[in-house]
């Protein structure tokens, strides 16, 4: 893979050129958090952002969109929400998240909306620095070798830029004079130092190799009932997770006429309706059973099928869950270590 160099001051001129033909999406501030948004004013881009509230999958499959328009002639697929996009500033863990969704939507179940949106979006990754919630090193998703068109490692005064695809190369060729082809020994050393420091900056880790067995061994553990008693079934963990991809569909008929639309919206296995079938039977009426399903997906089932967990260590569930049910506290509890968490405190308080 070719690696070139871009001076810091040359970034905006480069973004200027490439954003002429596509919407540029990048992380910007929302309160003290971050979100991906279309940016015109590059100074709004948060170069040192932490995880965005919603994962980048919202750019490919928005939380709600119209899937079909319906008329007397039949159904017609509606791709109108899909436009040419460049996604700048996506971190390694989130690129891994997209690769995991690819397993699902590009291989197991071909999803035309996802495929089309993926085809129309260029991925320009950006290096990051862990905060107290990140644990991407535990999931080995802190580094990325594929899944991007360009990847920028931010080294204070300059970027090292990995060219990951011919489309990425085409972008560079739009303005090659902005880049330096030659790296000095000092540049390389700066990068190596940065990487060593960054790897040391992860503040906690989780032993993922133990997780599949522990999920198996502790499937009947009272732990799950405690989690179920506390879970609010708010669906936040699922909605913010970059590797969740379930959805539901709803009819939107128009009054009087025969026309309508079929709307698709994000669904979550942590919600009650998710496992309900025709006739009202529900296979996972209990919240504890739903959480078991979610954690089986994240910590066990995906590993046996694809050799890696479907958790990328982004820390979003840790930030989002109001009652501290997340990969960290559940993972630690499975390992027999007790974290300080509301669901543990509640169970002590209410059952004492």
């Amino acid at each position, binding site marked *: 893979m070719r690696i070139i160099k871009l001076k810091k001051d040359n970034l905006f001129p480069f973004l200027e050129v490439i954003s002429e033909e596509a919407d540029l999406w990048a992380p910007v501030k929302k309160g003290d958090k971050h979100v991906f948004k279309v940016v015109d004013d590059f100074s709004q881009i948060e170069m040192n952002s932490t995880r965005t*509230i919603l994962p980048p999958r919202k750019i490919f499959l928005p939380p709600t969109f119209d899937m079909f328009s319906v008329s007397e002639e039949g159904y017609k697929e509606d791709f109108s929400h899909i436009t040419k996009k460049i996604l700048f500033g996506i971190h390694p863990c989130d690129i891994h998240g997209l690769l995991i969704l690819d397993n699902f939507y590009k291989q197991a179940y071909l999803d035309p909306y996802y495929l089309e949106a993926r085809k129309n979006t260029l991925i320009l990754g950006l290096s990051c620095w862990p905060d107290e919630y990140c644990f991407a090193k535990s999931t080995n998703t802190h580094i990325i070798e594929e899944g991007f068109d360009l990847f920028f490692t931010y080294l204070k005064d300059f970027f090292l830029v990995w060219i990951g695809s011919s489309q990425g190369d085409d972008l560079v060729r739009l303005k090659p004079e902005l880049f330096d082809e030659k790296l000095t020994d000092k540049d390389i050393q700066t990068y190596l130092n940065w990487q060593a420091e960054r790897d040391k900056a992860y503040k906690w880790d989780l032993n993922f190799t133990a997780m599949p067995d522990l999920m198996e061994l502790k499937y009947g553990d009272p732990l799950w009932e405690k989690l179920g008693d506390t879970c*609010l*079934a708010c669906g*936040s963990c699922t909605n913010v997770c970059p590797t969740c991809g379930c959805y539901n569909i709803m009819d939107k*008929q128009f*009054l*009087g006429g025969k026309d309508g639309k079929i709307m698709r919206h*994000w669904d979550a296995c942590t919600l009650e309706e998710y496992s309900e079938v025709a006739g009202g039977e529900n296979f996972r009426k209990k919240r504890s059973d739903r959480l078991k399903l979610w954690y089986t997906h994240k910590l066990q089932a995906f590993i046996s099928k694809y050799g890696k967990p479907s958790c990328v260590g982004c820390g979003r569930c840790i930030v*989002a869950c109001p009652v501290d049910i997340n990969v960290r506290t559940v993972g630690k509890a499975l390992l027999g270590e007790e974290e300080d968490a509301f669901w543990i405190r*509640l169970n002590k308080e209410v059952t004492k």
Partner: protein
Amino acid sequence: MEKGSKEKLKIGIYELTGCAGDALLILDCEKELIDMFKAADIQSFLMAKSDNIDGELDVALVEGSVSTEREKEELLDIRKRAKTVVAIGICACFGGIQAAFLDKKDWEKNFKKVYGDKKMTHTKPLQSKPIDAYIKVDYYLPGCPIGKEQFLSTFNRILRGHPPELYRFSVCVECKWNENDCLLNKGIPCLGPITRAGCGSICINHNLPCVGCWGPVEEANLTSEFHLLREKGFDYDFIKKKMANFSGTGMADFLGELKGEKK
């Protein structure tokens, strides 16, 4: 109605005790109003027309709670005439603000404070209750007021003989779809997790916590929400008031059980 039948469904829209916000919202569907009147035979709708008939109905939409003897009788009569009854708005579904005094004694005290010893001549006042305290309700369409999109979709589905299709999860789901930073996690008392979605998380989108105006979601984990708010520093009375504010009867059992918890 049988499929393919040319007869339009006979519909009645009624208002009991409430702010008439739901009826107003229906009127406010300006773009769709003509289609609505074309698609259905609207027999009674006091806010919209004067030639109202009180006959047999296919569907009655009832807004408001029952707070007088006369309303109770009117409601019983509506139920007798209508094949399907839909409760629209939080007052009809859960009692609304006027049912926030859960305790009969509290209500009596408050009633006295407002009306003194005045004699009620034209009807007997009752402690405000949702309509299912008196009649069987087929469908519930919550909201304060109900949402336009949800109302139109429900109306449309009922005309076609389908049950309403509502979101059955909490406000948090829509709140996340709108990519809000969670207020509850910042220590602001948000009732999103126990409140039914459908409003588009409009309050949180404007940086205000949810006060539960769409009523409890089916699976509301009131125990967990209650203790979470306690831990965040709010006292028993504050939380109880907040939870009972819009949907007293939906919370009554839980709040009743909680009595012993008061610290």
